[in-house]
């Protein structure tokens, strides 16, 4: 079997995991909020993108941007009204609240749009196959690899190399100290939350071609988001990136050679990786 196409396929499936999970790493890792409604924002974004393309006839890329903005705006409203009250609540309260929010989102979408799966109409240039010179491969997989890579670089620069990123990390590590240094933590968290949710929306749109899009999306993929984020290590965008790629490629290869295993591999892999490094693969051990 052709190793290059296996590698490309694996990378692409890892990129899908990364793109849909990275937003969760931002909210859960940086802000320390157990946001199980992450998939809900991804789903709302996916719907915004699909419906905008269908009803207003706008292109795929502008629709992605629109999805980001719309969901980010919605999430700020929810953050100020609901999430902000629970920042200091116990994790169980956060879990219960966000799971409840997922049910509300699922029911709203079912009622408003219907239970059926929505299909993303990709532009022609993203369909079919692309000739890379040495191999022909699925265009959309290549596009996913490119956009995932671009995303991780942008996020890494944003959180590790800007003063905005430094302020977020400071606020997470010691909220009171950051506040006394003049950081407006409330506003900072609102902005971070908006970015995380916007990223979820883009993930919902980009991943829909592979993962599908229907009202059960948030709960169906919740386990995937959590696996990737916990294996990657909380709050580490690059860690999530490597974890997603590692799981994606291994899962893909195992599925080709042992299809009988079905969807079990991703769970087995997560289990083994977490037994080996419980804090996540790419977190430095506490000293």
């Amino acid at each position, binding site marked *: *079997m*052709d190793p290059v*196409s*296996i590698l490309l*396929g694996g990378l*692409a*499936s890892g990129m*899908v995991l990364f793109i849909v999970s990275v937003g969760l790493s931002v909210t859960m890792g940086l802000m320390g909020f157990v946001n199980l409604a992450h998939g809900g924002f991804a789903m709302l974004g996916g719907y915004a993108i699909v419906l905008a393309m269908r009803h207003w006839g706008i292109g795929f890329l502008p629709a992605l941007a629109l999805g980001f903005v719309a969901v980010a705006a919605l999430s700020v409203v929810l953050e100020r009204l609901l999430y902000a009250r629970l920042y200091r609540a116990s994790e169980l309260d956060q879990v219960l609240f966000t799971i409840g929010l997922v049910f509300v989102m699922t029911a709203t979408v*079912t009622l408003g749009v219907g*239970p*059926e*799966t929505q*299909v993303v109409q990709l532009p022609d240039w993203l*369909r*079919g*196959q692309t000739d890379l010179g040495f191999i*022909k491969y*699925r*265009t*959309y*997989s290549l596009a996913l690899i490119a956009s995932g890579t671009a995303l991780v670089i942008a996020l890494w620069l944003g959180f590790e190399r800007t003063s905005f990123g430094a302020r977020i990390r400071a606020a997470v590590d010691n909220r009171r100290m950051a506040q006394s240094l003049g950081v407006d933590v409330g506003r900072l968290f609102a902005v971070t939350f908006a970015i995380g949710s916007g990223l979820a929306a883009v993930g919902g749109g980009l991943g829909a*071609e*592979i*993962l*599908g899009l*229907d009202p*059960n999306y948030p709960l*169906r993929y919740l386990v995937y988001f959590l696996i990737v984020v916990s294996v990657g290590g909380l709050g580490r965008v690059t860690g999530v990136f490597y974890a997603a790629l590692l799981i994606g490629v291994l899962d*893909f*290869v195992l*599925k*080709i050679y042992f*299809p*009988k295993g*079905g*969807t079990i591999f991703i769970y087995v892999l997560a289990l083994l990786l977490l037994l080996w490094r419980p804090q996540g693969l790419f977190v430095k051990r506490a000293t």
Partner: protein
Amino acid sequence: MKIRLTRLFAAALLSVFAAGAGAQTVKIGVVLPYSGVGAEFGQQVDRGIQTFIKLNPNAFGPYKIEIVKRDSKNPSGAEARTAVQELIVQEKVDILTGFIYSPDAIASAPLATEAKKPMVIMNAGTAWITTLSPMIARVSFSMWHAAHSMGEASAKNFKAKTAVVGYSDFPPGKDSLDAFKRGFEATGGKVIDAIPMGGPGQVPDFTPFFQRAKDKKPDVFYVFVPSGDHAVAVMKTYNALGMRQAGIRLIGPGDLTPDHKLQSMGDEAVGLVTIFHYNADLDNAHNKRFVASWKKDFGANSTPDFMGVQGYDGMAAIAHVVSTLKGRIDADAAINALRGWKYDSPRGPISIDPRTRDIVMNEYLSELVKSGGRLVQKNLGTINAVKDMCKELQEGRCK
């Protein structure tokens, strides 16, 4: 005490007379996934039921029916079993029907036997389900109907020598694999690989499985997945991996071409060949009436598919039972009434095999073509009065 007894007796007498006069209400328990991953299927069957009642208001004679719906949620069978239990114990229904997923029907069959309730299956297609209870009659299909016919047709019509089979890993998937293999290899072909492709609960990324199939270079790639979203993803992956250009023909049962998803599959689906017992483009008067009424009630964008017509036919079977038994449902008499029942359905002539209580119907070999700006099913040939070959050949658990 004495007065009470007389009153009771009088009431009992009255109710007997009332039944004779036609006031008896027959309670029908419908078990379908109204929520969760199968919600669309549940909707199809439910709309089929409604359409039958609307188009055939006199089919039940003077007898009243009451429909009690229960949600079977997940395809595991557990919730369906709970629902059936409730319907029998609390609602005291006379007839059970619905059952989208095979595990739902498999888990519920023992309850139907114990409580002696006729169970009219409107979908669940695993071949051996009908052997699980003498109370079962199936108006839908067995996996063998399409898969076995497709195995024969691949060798005969397309001169295929080798095939790879990809299937969703649950009972009907394995059934479809066995049936295709039996039909194909008996006609001179050879199945060179069989790939389980995840379960029915969620649509997997088909890329690794299809890549494996592509590398085996078969003449035909036979795919069985649950109808609906799985089917759309299959078509996408097949095209995206360039399997058509590699000369591999994608074939399958009509689950691959669900009528209500057809237009969203895009032009890439043109040329896809399937075999099935129904498609919305079938050319007969009853089907035209059925589709027209459906579109009027549920919107021009909604199209009945095989599950819709199975809900319709299931209701026709139940109407036959209700009117034959004059509104008083005795389980054995009901099943006997269904044995040999014949009906002119939107899918063509159907009947219930008196021996196996399974359906006998036509299979239509169809090709997707573009006509008038939309995708339509072009009939390539009809195989008349196909029985469930699993039970005819006494295969495995069908003995």
